[in-house]
């Protein structure tokens, strides 16, 4: 089946394939491929192991720098302030962590957690170069089983991370558990463009151009093909909203950014 046919079939029945539940319990998707659930994490790991060094520059190239504005919007909606404890989950190279660290100040703390040590290492070096050390902790962790006590954080962000997680419901439940009552979760993730025209342009961009740019800049077309496919397999706006509510989050809302290419979901724990 070609890439676009697969996409069409997903689009026709989004909740079935996107929620993963009706599929067999042993299989999940890796981009558009079906793989064993137990294998996905290591395949995702391989992707990020391979892109880690070029990750930041590729972000700028692929999004024309707009990812910086999406991330700013996330922080502006976070309500972060001095003294807060923030978890930047799937934080990778630490873009959000850097800003959070300055906002929460000496009396607060930011935990940069990622499943991948190569990404964590790039993040740690980058933040150190920026002089950010004292209030940041680095933890290698899987979002599905967070190694923190209940009610630990005022804010949790997961930016462009949730779609890589094998069991998203499990991950959302884990985030809910470690969030303090009154705290909020922000999920920044690729989503479904709201207009058909934009959708087509975006498809052409991500399935044809993006892997080529990936090949050119990072010498790694396959990883960027995975990224494009994983974006399409990610639950669209309303499905993710339901999933968050299912995990216990309240007052869940989302903002479409750049025509819905990206959406920021926000939910509270009370």
């Amino acid at each position: 089946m070609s890439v676009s046919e697969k996409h069409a079939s997903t689009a026709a029945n989004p909740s079935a394939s996107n929620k993963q539940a009706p599929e067999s319990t042993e299989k999940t998707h890796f981009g558009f491929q079906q793989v064993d659930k137990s294998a996905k994490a290591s395949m995702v790991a391989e992707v990020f192991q391979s892109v880690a060094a070029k990750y930041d520059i590729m972000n700028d190239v692929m999004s024309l720098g707009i990812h910086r504005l999406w991330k700013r919007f996330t922080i502006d909606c976070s309500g972060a302030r001095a003294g807060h404890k923030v978890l930047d989950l799937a934080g990778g190279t630490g873009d959000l962590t850097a800003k959070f660290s300055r906002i929460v100040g000496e009396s607060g703390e930011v935990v940069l957690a990622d499943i991948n040590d190569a990404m964590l290492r790039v993040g740690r070096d980058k933040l150190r170069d920026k002089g950010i050390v004292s209030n940041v902790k680095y933890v290698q962790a899987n979002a599905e089983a967070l190694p923190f006590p209940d009610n630990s954080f005022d804010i949790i962000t997961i930016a462009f991370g949730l779609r890589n997680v094998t069991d998203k419901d499990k991950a959302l439940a884990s985030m809910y558990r470690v969030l303090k009552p009154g705290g909020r979760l922000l999920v920044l993730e690729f989503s479904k463009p709201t207009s058909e025209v934009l959708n087509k342009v975006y498809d052409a961009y991500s399935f044809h151009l993006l892997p080529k740019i990936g090949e050119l800049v990072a010498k790694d077309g396959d990883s960027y093909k995975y990224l494009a496919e994983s974006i399409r397999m990610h639950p669209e706006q309303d499905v993710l909203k339901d999933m968050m509510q299912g995990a216990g989050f309240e007052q869940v809302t989302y903002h479409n950014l750049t025509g819905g290419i990206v959406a920021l979901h926000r939910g509270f724990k009370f």
Partner: protein
Amino acid sequence: MLVGQLLSAGIELALNQLLQLDPDCQGRLKKLSGKQLQVSVNELPWSLLFTFSGQIDVSALERNEEQAAMESSADCHITLGLGTLSDLKDSSKISQLIQQGKLDLAGDINVAQGFSNLMKELDIDWEEQLSKYTGDVVAHQTFSSVKSFFTSAQQEIDKLAAQFSTHLTQPEAVAVKPVEVDDFCEQVNVLRSASDRLEARIDQLIASQQDDQ
């Protein structure tokens, strides 16, 4: 959407670049470290939140109830109209503006004054900055030309302003006398020739630089 983020990103970049140009400002910045100042301009749909650490981070907060919680977290919150913004340059005027009802301030006034002083006392060696791009000699020459232009321009502007304010305070003198018009034209001419001189000087510098290459 995202316009606020673009705006705040631009302001943040500009502020931090300015701060980097003045090595002595770190001390003043340190005094503000850990503080937050929120500025709401009535005409704009966002409030700007300035967070001080080793640098300044700027957030754009949309004005809705959800962000109200965050608003209260700032150490100092200023609300004002667009027209009053430029008056903030002078921190000694802040209490005056409050009395006049042009500015509303909640929280710690020292944070607002600290920020105002930080910006006002920026002492940037523009000549040195320019020399990074052009080389020392050209930078020095350009710089002294520009400086003398601004000095003479400022003198003329001061004179005009002084005259203008006398007119305002003396209602009977609202009609302009011919001699004053002559005087005004003369000053405009002085200003014009100063700017002509500057232009010629810059042309000359560009030409000499091209010759060098």
